[in-house]
């Protein structure tokens, strides 16, 4: 029962924050609501016995992506003007599209008899993840570092303010 209560509390935090991200009139409120969504997802990860992924999510999303997003919001002007900062169009058709897609997905999830393993272990995961990264997944692991390097250089090249002529 305790796990169920925790799950519903985390789900309410996540979904409420995501609703605010989707519906808020002000882009600044959306950005700060994103913090609640990310924190709720961290809790969900911990509930799923993924301690390492939860901490990575906390460091990368909350510590990196969210701060970067707040910087971008603050660096672009017009955020104080509520009418232009977070304009939404096509709400009706978007609701219909998303509603149909979501109900189809929920129907599919409910109808499918998912294969479920028997042993739901909650052991620490860092040992296994480290072994897998330096074993089976060593090539994607190294390619990931190249991707991050390319993203680093690309971001500098794109956002550098160059005086033309």
């Amino acid at each position, binding site marked *: *029962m*305790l796990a169920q209560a925790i*799950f519903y509390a985390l*789900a309410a935090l*996540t*979904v409420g924050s*995501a*609703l605010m*991200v*989707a519906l808020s009139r002000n*882009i600044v409120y*959306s*950005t700060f609501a*994103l913090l609640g*969504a990310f924190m709720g*997802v961290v809790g*969900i990860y911990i509930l*799923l*016995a*993924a301690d390492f*992924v939860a901490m*990575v*999510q906390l460091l*990368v*999303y909350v510590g*990196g*992506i969210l701060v*970067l*997003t707040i910087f971008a*919001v603050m*660096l*672009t002007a017009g955020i104080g003007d509520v009418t*232009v900062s*977070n304009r*939404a*169009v*096509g709400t009706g058709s*978007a609701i219909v*599209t*998303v509603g149909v*897609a*979501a109900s189809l997905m929920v129907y599919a*999830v409910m109808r499918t008899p*998912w*294969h*479920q*393993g028997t042993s*739901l*272990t909650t052991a620490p995961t860092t040992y296994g993840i480290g072994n*897998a*990264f330096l074993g089976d997944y060593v090539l994607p692991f190294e390619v*990931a570092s190249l*991707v*991050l390097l390319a993203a*680093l250089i*690309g*971001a500098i090249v*794109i*956002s550098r*303010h160059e005086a033309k002529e």
Partner: protein
Amino acid sequence: MGGGITLDHFLVLSIIIFSLGIFTVLTRRNAIGILMGIELILNSANINYLAFAFYGGGKYDGQIFAIFVIMLAAAEAVIGLAIVLAIYQNFKTIDVDATETLSG
């Protein structure tokens, strides 16, 4: 885990977050708002990965894919926000409807 939480709970939660992310992407005209919607979508995909990893027998493959998704989300956010700032320098707005110079 007991406690009455099943795989379906996590999948439905993930669907809800995914739908809200899609809704954000579809309706926002602010480029940063669209990027936030994409972050929500990636988070919902990660919940799916970890839920299947947990209820599928506790292998590490799902968690490793989730870490790769987080890594790609970080790269995507960096590049996306750099593009947004470049657009802002050129157009003085980040409303995606205003930046239609290329459309014939």
